[in-house]
């Protein structure tokens, strides 16, 4: 892919807009957290916050690629579960094999992404249905393969990716490895959208696939690649979740909707046409900050769902209102 030409593209302004939306909500929520419990302002606790939010942020980045091209990926949670269960089966307690297995996990993820993309691009199945089917199948496969329960423990070198924390690091004090993985993944995802032609193509495809095609954009390839990126992010998130807390059969449950919600809260527009990587990052951080805040307030579990619903609608409503005011 060639670097983006120096012309001012139409995605500049919406991108900046999105930064503001997600960032503002995140800062407001984090301020509320810090108000309730001031030690969240210490670098250590902030780093721990990042460590726990990392999987959701990474998932949101992947989901954003698909959302930009106008689709959805409902199979992410199932792919994350598959990654955790497959790792436990394949590694089977032998730390020597960890890196080879991680490679295998990515191959499996890419395969799922390719299938999703091909089904949407060539069989013309709407992504919501295609990835719903993939969600059922992948989840079923993961459970059938493992017999419905985890098969082995994950070794420490695998767990460290989500669990290790370096202490006594200059400036920040403690540094979780997961935060480093997060920064790396976000940088890559940012580069994919802003450092290559891909970002422009994705926005064009999401905005109006017909026009994009007439302008010479490879629509099918752009779509397929988005699903592959999404699946790769799901595998990465699965590795971090498995690392953080160990093997479980429901590791990825419900994460797909959270990832979509995160992108939307951050200002990305469903069905394509608007959004930047910062919508995903700050949207996900906002959502996670919201969860943390609700925990701190000690609201009954069930009502946290309700509040999440209200925030979701409010965030979209607010962003609509702002867009309308500007035009």
């Amino acid at each position, binding site marked *: 892919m060639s670097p983006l030409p120096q012309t001012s593209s139409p995605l500049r302004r919406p991108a900046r807009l999105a930064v503001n939306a997600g960032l503002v909500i995140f800062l407001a929520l984090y301020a509320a957290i810090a108000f309730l419990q001031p030690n969240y302002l210490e670098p250590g606790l902030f780093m721990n916050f990042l460590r726990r939010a990392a999987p959701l942020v990474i998932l949101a980045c992947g989901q954003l690629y698909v959302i930009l091209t106008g689709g959805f990926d409902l199979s992410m949670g199932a792919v994350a579960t598959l990654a955790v269960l497959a790792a436990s089966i394949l590694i089977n307690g032998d730390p020597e094999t960890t890196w080879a297995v991680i490679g295998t996990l990515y191959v499996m993820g890419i395969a799922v992404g390719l299938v999703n993309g091909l089904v949407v691009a060539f069989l013309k199945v709407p992504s919501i249905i295609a990835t719903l089917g993939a969600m059922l199948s992948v989840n*079923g496969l993961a459970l059938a393969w493992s017999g419905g329960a985890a098969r082995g423990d994950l070794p420490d070198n695998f767990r460290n990716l989500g669990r290790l924390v370096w202490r006594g690091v200059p400036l920040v004090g403690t540094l979780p490895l997961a935060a480093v993985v997060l920064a790396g993944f976000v940088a890559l995802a940012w580069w994919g959208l802003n450092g290559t032609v891909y970002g422009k193509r994705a926005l064009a495809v999401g905005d109006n696939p017909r026009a994009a095609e007439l302008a010479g954009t490879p629509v099918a390839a752009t779509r397929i690649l988005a699903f592959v990126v999404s699946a790769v992010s799901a595998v990465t998130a699965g590795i971090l979740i498995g690392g953080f807390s160990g093997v479980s059969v429901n590791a990825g449950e419900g994460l797909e909707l959270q990832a979509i919600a995160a992108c939307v809260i951050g200002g990305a527009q469903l069905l394509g046409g608007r959004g930047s990587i910062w919508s995903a990052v700050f949207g996900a951080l906002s959502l996670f900050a919201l969860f943390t805040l609700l925990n701190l307030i000690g609201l009954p579990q069930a009502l946290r769902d309700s509040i999440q619903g209200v925030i979701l609608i409010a965030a*979209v409503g607010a962003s609509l209102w702002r867009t309308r005011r500007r035009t």
Partner: protein
Amino acid sequence: MTTDIAKNKPAARGLPVAVLLAGLSIGFFVAVALATGEVAQLGGQGIVGLLQRMVALGLVALGQTFVILVGSIDLSVAALISAVAVLASHVMQGDPAMILPAILLCLGLCLAVGLVNGVLVAYGGINPLIATLGTGLIVQGVLAASFGALQGAVAREFQVLAYGGVLGVPYSILLLAVLSLAAAFVLDRTLFGARVYAVGGNPEGARLAGIRTERVTLSAHVVASLFAGASGLYLAARLQSGTPWIGRDGIYDLESIAVTVIGGTILAGGKGGVAGTLAGVLLFASLDAAFNMLGIDAFLKQVLRGAIVVAAVAIHAVRTKGHVA
């Protein structure tokens, strides 16, 4: 996108898909019953059992068809089904005198939720996926938090809806049949139905033609919520008392969307109909029954179902010109 509102033979719309799908489903069911020696399943009771598997999902899916036809979608139905089932059992507390008030209250709740959904989508311009995901979460949260206070059971007399029947045909199946016919009639023979197709097929054109598109979208959402309510009431009768998770456990949100799309209603709106949706529901019911007879492992069953959903949509979607997302 795929727009041609100049269709004036609504009855023919989507029928081939429906017939093909229904035929395949029944064929599969019969073949499996013969192959496994479960011939009893082909008798009266077996067939009634098969149709009974359609009722809960069928009722929600009818409503989902309306919203999808106007180019919207409703993810809040699962939470609403739970809410209605819980509310019905709580209000009745086993007292037959409370059946009518309970039904009215439940339908009132559905009306309110449908109006909120419709206003958010049609007048607020909020993407329907987010709007209805949001309202669904709100309903689910309030319901789960207050469930402790909402215990109860429906009246025995009300359970007749799920367990009684005439001439061996359960009332619930008749209910589904009658409501399906009514829905088909509304879509195919009334002005409202024509507007639904017009708004879904080409919202700009419909607006230029003088249709108040917002109103049509709003009404479709109300219809979807009411059908979800009917499904919730049926489940309350069948399960005796509702719990806050029957809707979620039944995956009625995603499954109702899946069967509607499998039945040939396109997500962009404007094309499809009730017959296809029912055929999609029949496919799911036949799969459930046939997988039982075959004794397929629970996890493998999930893999197969996922693949079948995609394949069933691909069969007719693959001919789509242009792009889908």
